């Protein structure tokens, strides 16, 4: 088979895969972002702790939520590109942490086929540290993903989203004086 035919086949395959259901594929990716905030942990957690309130994240225009902070609660976040529905999997006021996962994918809004994450506030010196970790899959889980739907695109989108959120949280909490 010539190289041209091979790459055409690869292209056809990826188009077919992109048209099919976006089952999450076998190779997970990760992102791990941390920021220090000059405020006590309790104050940082106060800004973060309501699952249905993400006003600290500048990339989220709107949120609608049901279920409060109980596991199984749901929130729909609206990005500039579209909506994502997330469910609450674990929540601990005492440990100042919650974990969530994507309930319904929307690849036009966000180039990741499935994700889950956990955000935690801990004490660090006189202030706080916020750690946000995430596990996710590329948008096109076929073996020949186009560039905008591959592992690198997913890692970039998730990393930037988390950094933007943490910077927003820091600005919000530190700005309160």
């Amino acid at each position: 088979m010539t190289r041209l035919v091979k790459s055409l086949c690869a292209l056809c395959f990826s188009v077919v895969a992109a048209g099919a259901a976006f089952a999450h594929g076998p190779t997970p990716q990760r992102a791990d972002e941390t920021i220090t905030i000059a405020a006590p942990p309790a104050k940082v957690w106060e800004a973060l702790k309501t699952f249905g309130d993400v006003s600290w994240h500048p990339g989220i225009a709107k949120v609608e939520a049901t279920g409060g902070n109980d596991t199984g609660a749901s929130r729909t976040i609206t990005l500039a590109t579209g909506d994502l529905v997330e469910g609450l999997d674990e929540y601990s006021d005492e440990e100042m942490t919650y974990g969530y996962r994507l309930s319904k994918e929307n690849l036009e809004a966000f180039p990741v086929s499935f994700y889950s994450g956990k955000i935690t506030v801990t004490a660090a010196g006189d202030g706080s540290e916020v750690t946000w970790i995430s596990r996710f899959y590329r948008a096109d889980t076929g073996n020949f993903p186009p560039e905008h739907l591959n592992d690198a695109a997913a890692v970039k989108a998730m990393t930037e989203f988390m950094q933007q959120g943490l910077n927003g949280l820091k600005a919000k909490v530190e700005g309160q004086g």
Partner: protein
Amino acid sequence: MSNVLKGVAAAIAWMVSAGTAAAERIYILSQDGAVLSEVVPGAEAPADGATVALEKGPALLALAPDAPLAYVTHSDLGKVAVVDLDQRRVVRTIDVPGSPFGIAVGKGGRIFVGDWHEDQVIAVDTAGEGEPKLTKVRVGRAPAHVVLSPDGETVFVANREEDSVSVVRTSDMTVSATIPVGHAPFAMTLSPDGARLFVGNMQGGTVSVVDTATLAVRDTWKTGAMPYGAAVTPDGGRVLITHQGGGTVGIFAGTDTALATIKVGSYPEGVAIGENGTRAYVANWFSDNVSVIDLATMKEIRRIKTPAGPRAVAVRSAP
């Protein structure tokens, strides 16, 4: 060090490893690090040289029941690597179409591989020289874990996107039944006698307990969020389920809620039982380590450091 001394040291190292060859071994597969690590019970890391470098992105692992071999799926490459555990090297690479993910190994080198994207299970006869013979059977959407019954006659396949388990007869590779289970079945394990199949439903947060004689769900257990790994003790008395959400492992003892839930690392996945059912090993994918659980006290007693992204663990019994 002189060459003579090096030679003596190597000889001593060989004698020590040969002298302990009868002991149990723990094998840990790291996806990001692309390494299979061998660990002795009680150790906190693989010994020097006790690792096997693999091609990119190894996903899951199964040990042969009758040979010192491990079979590793490479979903993104369309390959299965065969590792000789005594020689600690890849001795063969088999091309398997599609995205090979779940894997089970029967006697005589017959392996069963789930193809995640093409919704099929492929039996590969690896015995002998030359191109292996492939036999395919269509199953449900997105086959995840694949397990083989102790008698080798049946393969069970978790169809993640179809909320079902396919039952495949290995003699002619046909689907003999499809069992509806919970939402997004992923990991599975069989009781040692083969009578019960435990299916972790990832999105549902449940385990479906399947009676393999009647092929019906006889019980449903409530687990933590995102059950992602499953193992049973040799006496069948304990079932361990890892939870990605919350980073815990639940220990079940035949009732529909966990007897104990133990904190492990972040994003735990595969779990295996060792030392005659007294230890469990849990691969903490995000934390890059393996939790060692004492099943008598139901406490984490140690972490084994691993290369990045451990997803699967297997224990090779002492011969």
